[in-house]
Every structure is written in C-alpha cells, then in structure tokens.
C-alpha cells in the first residue's frame, strides 16, 4: 500500500479576465483601469492598464501553479494614478479557496464588492483560554476534546458569520452591530431553551471567570508596508454589555506576541457594568452599553458571557500633531455561551482571522451581470484544479492499462480511444495523454494508430484532420510540448523586430484613410512576410526528431489512405505545421511565449495579416489549382507576390525535411552539433532583487533590483531589460538552490539563495511573489540536479526518461560521451516539464468523473449509446465486430476497476490525513474551511465507493 505521507498536492489556477462594465469611478475620459490577481493579500499578476473607458476590455489569461496554502483568491480592479496619489481600488471579486472549483472553466459576471480594511484580512493566532469557576479551581477543557463537536462548531461558526453578513449591510457602526447581535442572540437563546439542550448554566457559572491569552499571531496583513499591531479583547454579554480590554502596541512586526492575560467574569450584574478588575500595564478596560436592555431576557440577576472576540488593529503613527488612527487587521470570535460551548473550546488553539463584516457578495458569479452593488461587474473565467498526487508506482496499473492497448488491434478497444470518446473536452484528455506517451517514448506510436483509425472513416479529403478530434488535439499538444523551443528559436527574433518596429502594414483599402499609404504598407508587409517565411523554411533540420517522426507517420497514413492524390503528402503536414502551429503563434505570440508585452492594435493587425499570408502560402503549396482565388480581394496582390515557383519549391522542401525521419539516434551527432551552434534557449526572465555574495556589508544593506535571465547556458542579470548583463554565471556553476523560510535573518519574504561552485557566499535573490519564487526555484533545482548527475557519471547530461540528455544513448550503462556540449535544449526542457504521476492522476480523475457513463457503456450493448451531459448530446460508438466489442468491454471493465482501486487509495489517504490533522493546530486553525471541505469530501468518497462495484 502506498505511503500516504508521500502524497503531494498540485494546485493550478488559470484565470482569464475578460472585461469590466459599468465601473463606478471617475468619468470615462480620465479613467485608467487595470486588474490584479492576488492570493490572500499577495499580488501575483496584473493586467495592462486600459485607459479612457468605464468598460475596459482586457482579454488577458494568467496561469500558474500555486506554491503555498492560500485561503482566497481576489481580483482587484484599480483606477490608476490620480495625480501622485496611490492607485484607488474600485472593487474586487472575492472567492474562497474551496469555492473555486465551482467555477470550473466557465465564464461568470461578478459584481464587484467594496474593498475596505474590514474585509482585507489574513493571518492566524494562537489563543489560550482557561476557565476558573466560582469554587476557585481551574477547569481545563481539553479533556473534552471531542472532534465531532469541534467540527460542528466550526460549521456553526461559519454559518453564524454568514448569517450576520446578511444582516449587516453597509454599516460598520458598533451599535448597529450590537443590535443585530442581540437580535440573533435572542433567537438563539429562545430556541436553545425550548430544545432544552442547555442545562441551567446560569447557576453554576455565577462566579466563574475566563482568562484569555493571545499567545502569538502569524502573517498579519501589512498596511502600506507597515504593521504595528495591537489587540482588543471584547467580552460580549447576553444583555448587550461589552467589556473591552486592549494590549500595548507591538512595533514593526506582523508576527506579534501578546502574552498578557485578560480575565472576564462569566456573568455580569446588569447594574454593575463597570467591572474592571484587570489592571495590566496600560491596558484599559472600557464598557459599552450599547442598547437599552430591551432584548435581554434576564433583566434582574444579570447576564452571561456570550462571546469573546479578539480584534487586531494596526496603529497608524501620528502626523503633524493629528492623532494616529487604527486600521482593522482581523478578528476572531469565540462563542462561550453556557457550559456546552465552553466545554467544547480548546484551551490552546490556533484560529484564523476573519473579516469584521464581510459584505454580502451577491450571487457568487452569475451567467449574466446584475448590478447589485453599483461598483461595476467583471467577467472572469476561472479554472482551478487541485490534484492529490501519489508516487508514480501507485499508478502502475493505470499506466499499464493505457500503454497496453495501443499496440494491439483494434485501437478502438484501447483505453486511450475510449477516453477520447467519453470525455467531452478533447483538449482535457489530450494534454495528459501526450505528456504521458512522450514520457514513455510512445507518442509517435499512439498518434499513428489513432490517425489510421480516424482516416479509415474519412471520405472527404479536404477536411483531413480538420475536426477537433483526439488526433488533432494530441498533435497540437505534442507540437507545443516538444516544439516550443524550436518555435522560439525560429520565430522569436523576427517577431521581436516586428513588434519593436511597429510599422504600418494595413493593406485593406476599407481600413486606410490615406490611400497613398497602401503602397508603402504593402511593401512593409511583404518584407515582414518574407522574413517570417524564410525563418520558417530554413528551420527544417532544427525541427525536433519526435515531431519529424510524427509528421512522417501522418504523411504515411494519409498517402496509404489516398494513394491517388498527389497533394495529400503536403497538405497533411502543412495543415499541422502551418495551420496549427506557426500561424497561431504569429497571430498570438503571447500565448506561445514569443512575446511578453501587450500588443497595440497596429501590431496585432500586422501579425494577423502575416499569419494569414503564411497560412495561405502553406495551403497553396499543397493544393495548387489553376485559378487561385482570393477570398478577401485586397489580399490578391500579396498572395500573387508569394505564390511563385521559388517560394512553393522551398516550402515543399521544408515540408519534406520536417517529415523525414533521420535514422534514430545515429544522426544525433548532427543534432548535438546543431544544439551547440543554436543560441541558448531562454528559460525565464524577470525583475528580481539580488544581493551579491562578495559583499561584506551587513545584511539588508545592498539589495538591488536587477533584470535576470536564465537560459540553457547561463544565469545573468543586468541593470535593466535590454542592458548588457553585469554578471553572467554559466549554469554548470550552479550547484544548489535553497528557499529561505519567511522567518529568515534577512526578514524578507519570497527569498532564496543560489549556491555557486567554488564560492563561499551564496547569491541571495528575492522575487516579487510566491508564484515567481516557485517557478525560479523549480527551474534552478532541475539545473542543479542535472549538474550533480554530470559529476557522478561520465556522461555530461543526465539519464532522464530513458536516455541521456547529452548523447541520447538509451542504455544507462553505456560509456560516457566525451563531447563537451551544452544540453540539448529540447530534451532538457522535457525533463523539466514532465510529471507522469500528475498526468496519471488527472486521467484517473477523468475516468472517475465518468465512471457512471462507463458502467452504462459496459452493461448496455448495441451500436452506439447516447446520453445527455451538461445539456449536450453525447454518444459512444462501439466497434463493429463482435470480438472487438468484447475487447472493448474488457478494457472498460479494467478501467472501472483501476479507477475504483485508485479511489480507494484516495479515501484511505484522506482518512489517515484527517486522523492526523487536528483542528485548532497550527496547520489547521479553527475556521479553516479547507479542513471542513476535506472531511466532507471524504464522506463523499466513501459514499460513492459503495455505488461503484460492477
């Protein structure tokens, strides 16, 4: 059985910010709006700023792995820079972590909610509570540690919060707050009395006291970069009386410790409201009498302690004599009404801070906008996945099941083909499958088999591989996975030039005011197209071997299927390499990491025209009919310019090159030579703060902002982007990378150190946020791994995925290669990005999500099975022949049982996790919704389990 402690959680978030509407800010002439995405309070990314509109269109997509625990995702909408003032938040979208899954890659309009200090909360605190009853001995309540009662209390706590949220609208005033409180209480008491669940607690608690200690706080939010926290402890009694005590201010820390004890009576006399027996330093106790006692049910002999709340404030310094204020940082409310609630409390536990009065967030995203708050609405698409991934060996059965089917006939009975039929979104299936088969070095085989099957059903040659089928989707993924560096090497320089020069290239007369410019524009455009086209056709031999194998196989299949068609040998390859690879990359360079900066309208149009022309040339090569027809009239001249014999011949040569298989790895020397000549591939770049190792100055004195670039050759940094690097470290020098904990000597967050060979002191680097930090560290770790391997073996590269990255030999014991060459960037990149265990887990989740459908397919027969899913018709087609059908059913049976077993592993793992985790511990503070989700999920798992068996 798997060791559950080895389970890891992989969280990924993709957020597309579409557009905003009806923003409530300055008028449209001066507005300049941008959005930021934040995990808790930490900004992760931001959109470009859109000016002069209250309905800005962003169309920006962000995707990243989540490196740490977080509680909520916020998307803030900002209005930028009003005359040197700080940017003003217009509003935000606020989603709890456990609610993210609901938005499952669908677009929603979110009403913006106000951004105010009351809801901007983060951090947790450890609270000690001791009760002392009237007889004078301490009652420790931890003996009463019943997990279930705690759980329900957590839920009640949440419920209560929500309840209040709905009651309190736009009003933070204390008396109103109390009013509602009392009102709730009133009900609460009455009902509890009626049910008689609370025994006569008043008598027993008459003279008791409770002592509260706020031991320490962690990760409080910083306000304008500062945090000078103090705490206010408030005891609320059933008659609305509030007793307030406060601590001293702790300076310059967001992890303060307050150890002063605060004591409160468990009951107060109604008349005696000034009880203040606590005299600690400067701590003060104040009493608020909020309301006439109209709601109190015990007007005569006093009231009971109802709740203790701890509120954290940031004390703002005094300016020019004006008094300093305070900013809300967070609040913990601990209900203590009666014995039962008191007994359920832990004497020492961690709590999450909660917002003071979270505004009702309206419907949490609706298909259509509803202007409920009047701050505006934002259209957002969110795809969040959290995978619990086990060690690779756990998935052995699933892996075998996926692999075994593809070499047997028919492919329609294989698990891969069945998956392709049952999962609605082909991209979702194709992504993990391609990565897995690439890892297993079987990608060419599986795509060939699937393509043969698809072609056997195709009659119309013109739409060859045009549909969104499993084959075309898998080819897309394979080209992206294995061909990204090839794409970058081929197109990056020319795309960069085009973006920088920003020449006008519009040749549509309907879109140009000054018709005289068209000639000049035409010349510009033709020049660009020529540059791009030449870059592509000269790149043939740089095309990665795997892709060449794939193109070769597809061409093979197509020629066999349509032997009398002379065009198909080109059209089949061009429909992938041009239509699905180069043309989309030119059109949307940001999507393929070819450009980072936002494109202006002119550049976008230029790229669109180039992309169209390139695609047309690619298509023209394969289907030259005598009369060339141009759909858009104005493109006629341009296409005529390029559809000449020389261009056609060179394009044909290129298509031939990329579909020629160079004999296995014998040709690898050639490859290696190439890779040592080709420029280093850029892996990552960005601004970071660094401190050089040689410095003798004390910590924190000379951190500098630098522009870092990590390529397959070196790590370098320069004073700014585009400047000459001031430091260039070969990556072979990098021997270690280490994350520094947040409580490091430098008192800085998101900081790590890079250890360099033969140097005593490391290089300290600080990133802008946790996501950046993870991405840099992940890359650097892979480099270190590779470097380490280089030293322990004769090979210069590492043995990854069944071959050496240096020489490609497939036998691990083969003698080392002596060439001193850089990594083959392509293989290097694969090694850094593949994660087979994660991909297998994704596939398991897909099977599991469709388990009921699979069972129906298994049980029912016939030619095809129809079913309804998310309001769309879906169908499964069985193989025709009887023995094939039997095979197909057998595969389905195996899929179900493998998924069943894996699910059991998940359930057991969750159970053992739940047993280990204690609510109230530092890891699972009280108020942690994830814990509740986990436990409820587990119940879900268990109940589903019983339904499964065939």
């Amino acid at each position, binding site marked *: 059985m798997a060791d559950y402690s080895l389970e890891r959680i992989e969280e990924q978030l993709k957020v597309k910010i*579409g*557009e905003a*509407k009806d923003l409530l800010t300055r008028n449209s002439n001066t507005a300049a709006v941008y959005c930021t995405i934040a995990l808790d309070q930490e900004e992760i990314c931001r959109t470009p700023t859109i000016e002069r509109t209250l309905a800005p*269109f962003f*169309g920006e*997509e962000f995707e990243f792995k989540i490196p740490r625990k977080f509680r909520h995702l916020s998307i803030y909408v900002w209005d930028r820079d009003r005359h040197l003032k700080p940017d003003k938040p217009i509003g935000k979208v606020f989603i709890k972590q456990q609610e993210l899954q609901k938005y499952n890659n*669908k*677009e*929603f*309009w979110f009403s913006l909610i106000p951004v105010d200090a009351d809801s901007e909360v983060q951090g947790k605190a450890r609270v000690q509570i001791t009760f002392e009853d009237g007889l004078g001995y301490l009652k420790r309540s931890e003996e009463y540690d019943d997990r279930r009662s705690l759980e329900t209390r957590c839920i009640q706590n949440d419920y209560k919060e929500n309840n209040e949220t709905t009651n309190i609208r736009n009003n933070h005033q204390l008396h109103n707050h109390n009013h509602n409180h009392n009102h709730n209480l009133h009900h609460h008491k009455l009902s509890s009395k009626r049910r008689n669940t609370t025994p006569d607690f008043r008598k027993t608690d008459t003279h008791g006291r409770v002592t509260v200690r706020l031991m320490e706080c962690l990760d409080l939010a910083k306000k304008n970069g500062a945090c000078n926290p103090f705490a206010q402890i408030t005891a609320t009694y059933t008659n609305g009386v509030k007793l307030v005590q406060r601590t001293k201010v702790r300076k310059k820390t967001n992890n303060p410790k307050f150890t002063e004890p605060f004591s409160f009576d468990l009951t107060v006399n109604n008349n005696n409201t000034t009880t203040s027996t606590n005299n600690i330093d400067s701590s003060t106790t104040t009493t608020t009498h909020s309301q006439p006692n109209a709601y109190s049910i015990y007007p005569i002999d006093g009231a009971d302690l109802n709740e203790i709340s701890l509120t954290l404030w940031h004390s703002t310094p005094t300016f020019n004599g004006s008094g300093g204020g305070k900013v809300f940082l967070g609040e913990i409310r601990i209900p203590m009404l009666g014995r039962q609630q008191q007994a359920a409390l832990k004497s020492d536990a961690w709590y999450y801070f909660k917002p003071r009065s979270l505004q009702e967030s309206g419907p949490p995203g609706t*298909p*259509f*906008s509803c202007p409920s708050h009047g701050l505006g609405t934002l*259209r957002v698409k969110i795809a969040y996945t959290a995978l619990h991934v086990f060690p690779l060996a756990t998935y052995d059965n699933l892996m075998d099941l996926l692999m075994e089917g593809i070499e047997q006939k028919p492919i329609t009975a294989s698990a891969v083909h069945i998956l392709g039929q049952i999962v609605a979104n082909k*991209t979702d299936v194709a992504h993990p499958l391609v990565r897995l088969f690439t890892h297993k070095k079987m990608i060419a085989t599986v795509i060939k088999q699937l393509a043969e099957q698809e072609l056997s059903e195709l*009659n*119309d040659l*013109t*739409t060859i591989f*045009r*549909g*969104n*089928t499993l084959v075309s989707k898998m080819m*897309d993924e394979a080209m992206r996975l294995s061909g990204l560096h090839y794409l970058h090497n081929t197109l990056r320089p020319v795309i960069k030039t085009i973006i920088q020069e920003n020449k006008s290239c519009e040749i*549509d007369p*309907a879109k140009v005011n000054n018709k005289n410019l068209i000639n000049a524009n035409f010349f510009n455009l033709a020049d660009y197209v020529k540059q791009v086209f030449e870059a592509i056709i000269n790149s043939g031999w740089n095309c990665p071997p795997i892709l060449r194998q794939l193109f070769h196989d597809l061409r093979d299949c197509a020629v066999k299927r349509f032997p009398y068609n002379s065009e198909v040998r080109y059209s089949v390859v061009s*429909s992938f390499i041009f*239509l*699905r690879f180069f*043309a*989309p990359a030119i*059109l*949307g360079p940001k*999507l393929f990491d070819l450009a980072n900066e936002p494109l202006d309208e002119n550049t976008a149009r230029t790229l*669109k025209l180039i*992309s*169209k022309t390139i*695609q*047309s040339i690619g*298509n*023209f090569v394969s*289907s030259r*009919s005598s009369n060339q*027809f141009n*759909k*858009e009239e104005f493109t006629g001249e341009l296409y005529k310019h390029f559809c000449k014999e020389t261009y056609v011949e060179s394009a044909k040569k290129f298509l031939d090159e990329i579909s020629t298989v160079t004999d296995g790895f014998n040709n690898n020397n050639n490859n290696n030579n190439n890779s040592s000549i080709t420029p280093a591939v850029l892996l990552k770049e960005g601004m970071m703060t660094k401190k050089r190792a040689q410095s003798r100055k004390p910590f924190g004195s000379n951190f500098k902002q630098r522009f870092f670039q990590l390529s397959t050759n070196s790590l370098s940094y320069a004073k700014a982007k585009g400047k000459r690097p001031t430091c260039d470290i070969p990556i072979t020098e990098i021997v270690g990378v280490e994350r520094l904990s947040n409580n490091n000597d430098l008192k800085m967050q998101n900081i790590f150190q890079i250890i360099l060979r033969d140097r005593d002191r490391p290089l300290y680097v600080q990133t802008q946020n946790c996501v950046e930090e993870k991405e840099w560290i992940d890359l650097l770790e892979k480099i270190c791994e590779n470097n380490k391997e280089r030293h322990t073996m004769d090979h210069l590269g590492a043995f990854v995925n069944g071959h050496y990255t240096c020489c490609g030999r497939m036998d691990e014991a083969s003698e080392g290669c002596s060439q001193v060459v850089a990594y083959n960037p392509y293989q290097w990149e694969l090694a850094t990005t593949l994660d087979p265990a994660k991909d297998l887990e994704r596939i398991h989740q897909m099977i599991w999500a469709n388990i009921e459908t699979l069972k129906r397919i298994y049980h029912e027969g016939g030619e095809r099975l129809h079913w309804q899913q998310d*309001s*769309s*018709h*879906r*169908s499964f087609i069985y193989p025709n022949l009887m023995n094939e059908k039997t095979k197909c059913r057998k595969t389905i049976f195996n899929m179900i049982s493998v998924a069943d077993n894996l699910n059991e592993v998940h359930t057991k793992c969750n159970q053992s996790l739940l047993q280990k985790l204690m609510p109230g511990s530092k890891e699972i503070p009280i108020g942690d919704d994830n814990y509740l989700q986990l436990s409820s999920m587990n119940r879900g798992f268990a109940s589903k389990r019983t339904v499964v068996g065939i």
Partner: protein
Amino acid sequence: MREYKIVVLGSGGVGKSALTVQFVQCIFVEKYDPTIEDSYRKQVEVDGQQCMLEILDTAGTEQFTAMRDLYMKNGQGFVLVYSITAQSTFNDLQDLREQILRVKDTEDVPMVLVGNKCDLEEERVVGKDLGKSLANQFNCTFMETSAKAKINVNDIFYDLVRQINKKSPEKKQKQKKKSLCTLL
C-alpha cells in the same frame, strides 16, 4: 446607412467561408483554405432599407479561439454553422452559443443556426429534426443551406438583419440629441 456587424462561427471545415463568399461575391469556393480571420463588406437592401453588412468570417481551428472574445463583444448578430455530414460540428455549437451569451451578457442575441452542406443528402448524419430542436432550445431561427447549390444562403443574412432591427431599432433621436449637445 445603418451598419450591421455579423459574425460567422462554427467548427473547422463546415463551410463558413463558403457561405460568406457565396453571399458576398456569389462564387462557390471549390478550394479549401482554412480561414484565420477574414472580413467582408456588402451593401444589401432588406425590406426596402439599405444596409451595410460587415461580415466577419472566423477560424474554425481552435488554436485561434483566443480572439473569440473580442469579436463576440463587437458582433451584433451571429451565424452558427455546422455541417450536416459531421456530428461533432453540431455538438460543438452548444459551447459557442453559451460563450456568446456570456460575453454579450444577455439571453437575447440575434442568431441563426445553420446546417450547411444540405446538398450532400446521402452523407447526412445530423437529421433536420435535431437541428430544429436545437434551434428551439437556442430560441433562434434555423435553416439548412448549401453554399455549393446556393440554397438559403442570402436568407441567413437577411433574417439576421431583421432580427437585429427588431431587437434594437435604429435610434434617430439619439443623433439629434448629440447635435444638440454640441450646439450647447
């Protein structure tokens, strides 16, 4: 003259360009050339009124869908095309329509559902009744067409113009108001 922004959508190879070019230039494109994005302008008379149609012919290839958002935002009427000879092209339309509604932020969007290639009756996979019921569900007009045989091609665009007119009648008053403002 009023301008109408029309967007033609659908999977790869269903005949979006063939329909559009047949309508604009009265030619059937024999050669298959996957579109990235083409735009056309054509002046027509619908119900005695001169209209300028601006037709955006889009990519069926999913690689280019990043731009969908923008043209859905700008478009006023939408032609959803599938091929009666390919079931998957029919299934793909559900998501497209949903995306249009969300981007437009309303249930009521001028739209025509089109089953193309109706000349290829012998290769038919998607029955006419299926098309009709989907149109019912979409609450939009339905027609089967053939760009090759020139069946129902013009009707698609005329119907869409009428739908747009019905939904948002031309506002002449607004222009008057504007001129008043400049006077002030």
